[in-house]
């Protein structure tokens, strides 16, 4: 059976499964639509949260970023998992006890202010729309690569599938579909990793392979990797970070940003009890950790495989003792057909600059390396482009794994992108139908009317997301910094203060959110351009220009500190919150009495 047919079977079978679940789990009430009727088992909810959280970025991009960034990029690993500790300890149980459907609703009630709720809705929509663009692109690209159709056609198919189960199933349909998607994506991620770990280190668990021994050379795997990459002039994989403060703040921004993402927080509204919200965060992290502890092994092993492919001598000895791989071999060896496949996509580019028939891959930014290059007659690095994203997708091909593994990876990448897109779309549609329509425009809307409004807003959100996926603004990748920055600097601090302080009042919360929002946005726009319009940035986006070396990606943590500080100062200068709000805070701190959530 050829690869295309295999891909079609795997992707088709998983899609049929998702649709089947959607038909089984239709939502009949608003409680089911927004919060799955609060009846989801905490372990299943953890699994669904894992699928919701792990996006196309986690599945496709993260290992590639780690492969080429090394130690420094551990910020992603710690940041995207450590946030769950904050969720479990500081937010999830209390927000579940509060027992409403949306994040802006809590902010509106706790700070007795329609303005604060509206501000939260705006932040939520900016964060979620930003995120959803990347997911829709991920769906399109994966379809395009594996089903040999255009990216745009792939996007339409993906949008139609999400439409089917999100609009009819709401949170209930999405949750049970995500459970299935989690199973698909985790199998797809770990099976190639296990094969590769066995090939390189003999260890079955990739987590042990990472700290194991490289079989071919007999030295420790990480030592081998460091030796091979530094020999070619690249930074050592385990090497120190250039700027510890920036790595610290970046990790912190990702952690508190994770804890402040509305589509993650609403997952904890779906469990039956407060104690379930606590353990559900733990289960979510179990399922996330299965992928995140494997990711550094996938990244580092892909890096070694790629490098030894280009320098066959590096497998056992030194790269530079032998010759680089020849163009003729790449074109004729069936094991290297993956190079040709990816060259066609333009994500991998090789160019024999000095015309010696070989492809020399090295760091031509390294001065020591350029001395060697001059002696040997090389005229620059001949692997001129390697896109981070190909590392996970090409991994099974690099390791020459069977065709069904490749098909499984395609289905897994689609599951990761679709599940996250659905979660984001639900967060957007509930903010529109519950916070805007029921909360301010038409408070007397009937249950049936609100359910219809929720479905219409979901459909509308999918159309907008599809449009933006087809015509991605040039700044799509950079906007992710803004999404995390905003979640960290606006939503997380007000939620936490709303629970842990009775003294923070309406004025304080609004001041805090505005300061966090404006500070973070202005810092990012200074380097990335005002509203990401190219050419309007006031300073060039390079490390030398950053204040204390803090990159725009890391600024959310600073924005959060400013949010906390201004909310505290303003609250203490104005009068304390009314009695009924202080009683509300008292009541969310005690688990007893957490009933079924209501929208009233």
């Amino acid at each position, binding site marked *: 059976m050829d690869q295309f047919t295999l891909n079609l079977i795997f992707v088709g079978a998983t899609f049929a499964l998702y649709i089947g679940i959607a038909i089984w789990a239709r939502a009949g009430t608003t409680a089911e639509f927004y919060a799955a009727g609060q009846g989801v088992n905490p372990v299943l909810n953890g699994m669904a949260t894992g699928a919701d959280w792990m996006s196309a970025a986690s599945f496709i991009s993260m290992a590639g970023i780690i492969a080429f960034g090394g*130690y420094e990029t*551990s910020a992603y*690993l*710690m940041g995207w*998992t*450590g946030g*769950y*500790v*904050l969720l*479990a*300890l*500081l937010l999830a*149980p209390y927000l579940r006890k509060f027992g409403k459907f949306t994040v802006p609703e809590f902010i509106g009630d706790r700070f007795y202010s329609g303005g604060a709720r509206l501000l939260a809705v705006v932040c939520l929509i900016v964060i979620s729309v930003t995120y959803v663009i990347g997911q829709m692109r991920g769906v399109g690209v994966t379809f395009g690569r594996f089903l040999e159709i255009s990216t745009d056609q792939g996007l339409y198919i993906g949008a139609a599938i999400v439409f089917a189960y999100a609009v009819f199933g709401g949170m209930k349909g999405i949750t049970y579909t995500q459970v299935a998607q989690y199973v698909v994506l985790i199998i797809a991620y770990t099976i190639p990793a296990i094969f590769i770990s066995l090939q390189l280190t003999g260890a079955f668990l990739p*987590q042990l392979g*990472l*700290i*194991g021994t490289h079989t071919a050379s007999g*030295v*420790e*795997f*990480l*030592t*081998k990797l*460091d030796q091979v990459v530094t020999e070619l002039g690249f930074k050592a994989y*385990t090497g*120190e*970070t250039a700027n*510890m403060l920036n*790595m*610290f703040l970046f*990790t*912190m921004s990702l952690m508190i940003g994770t804890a402040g993402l509305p589509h993650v927080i609403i997952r904890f509204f779906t469990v039956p*009890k*407060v*104690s379930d919200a*606590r*353990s559900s*965060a*733990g289960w979510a*992290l*179990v399922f996330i*950790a299965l992928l*995140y*502890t494997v990711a*550094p092994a996938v990244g580092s092993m892909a890096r070694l495989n790629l490098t030894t492919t280009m320098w066959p001598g590096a497998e056992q000895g030194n790269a530079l003792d032998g010759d680089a791989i020849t163009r003729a071999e790449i074109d004729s060896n069936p094991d290297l057909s993956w190079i040709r496949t990816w060259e066609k996509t333009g994500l991998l580019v090789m160019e024999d600059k000095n015309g010696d028939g070989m492809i020399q891959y090295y760091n031509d930014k390294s001065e020591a390396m350029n001395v060697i290059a001059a002696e040997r007659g090389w005229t620059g690095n001949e692997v001129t482009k390697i896109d981070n994203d190909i590392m996970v997708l090409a991994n099974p091909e690099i390791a020459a794994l069977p065709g069904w593994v490749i098909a499984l990876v395609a289905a897994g990448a689609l599951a990761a992108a679709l599940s996250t897109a659905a979660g984001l779309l639900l967060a957007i549609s509930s903010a529109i139908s519950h916070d805007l329509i029921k909360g301010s425009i038409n408070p007397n809307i009937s249950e049936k009317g609100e359910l219809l409004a929720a479905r219409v807003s979901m459909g509308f959100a999918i159309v907008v997301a599809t449009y933006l996926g087809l015509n991605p603004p040039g700044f799509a990748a950079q906007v992710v910094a803004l999404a995390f920055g905003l979640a960290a600097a606006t939503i997380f601090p007000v939620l936490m203060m709303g629970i842990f302080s009775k003294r923070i009042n309406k004025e304080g919360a609004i001041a805090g959110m505005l300061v966090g929002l404006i500070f973070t946005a202005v810092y990012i726009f200074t380097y990335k351009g005002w509203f990401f319009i190219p050419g309007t940035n006031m300073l060039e986006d390079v490390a030398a220009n950053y204040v204390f070396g803090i990159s725009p990606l890391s600024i959310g943590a600073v924005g959060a500190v400013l949010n906390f500080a201004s909310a505290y100062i303003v609250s203490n200068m104005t009068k304390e919150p009314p009695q009924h709000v202080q009683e509300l805070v*008292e*009541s969310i*701190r*005690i*688990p*007893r*009495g*957490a009933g079924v959530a209501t929208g009233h």
Partner: protein
Amino acid sequence: MSDKSSSNAYWAANLRIIGISLVVWFVCSFGLGIILRPALEGISVGGADLGFWFAQNGSIYVFLVLIFVYAWRMNKLDREHGVEE
């Protein structure tokens, strides 16, 4: 929430558990994984050093244990103060 002083004691005990947990959270990630890494250079773990391992894998395992220990401690505390669901 029948008794005001009991609910204050419950909240104070909760804050203490959260405080201890956050110290562990900070030390295993920001501490061992980032700030203290240069100081731990000598301790080797499979071809790299302890700080590197904590940054790439170890901190995640600690996070996991931390959440379940917290959930277990809080469920116990809920029962002791009679505020469980």
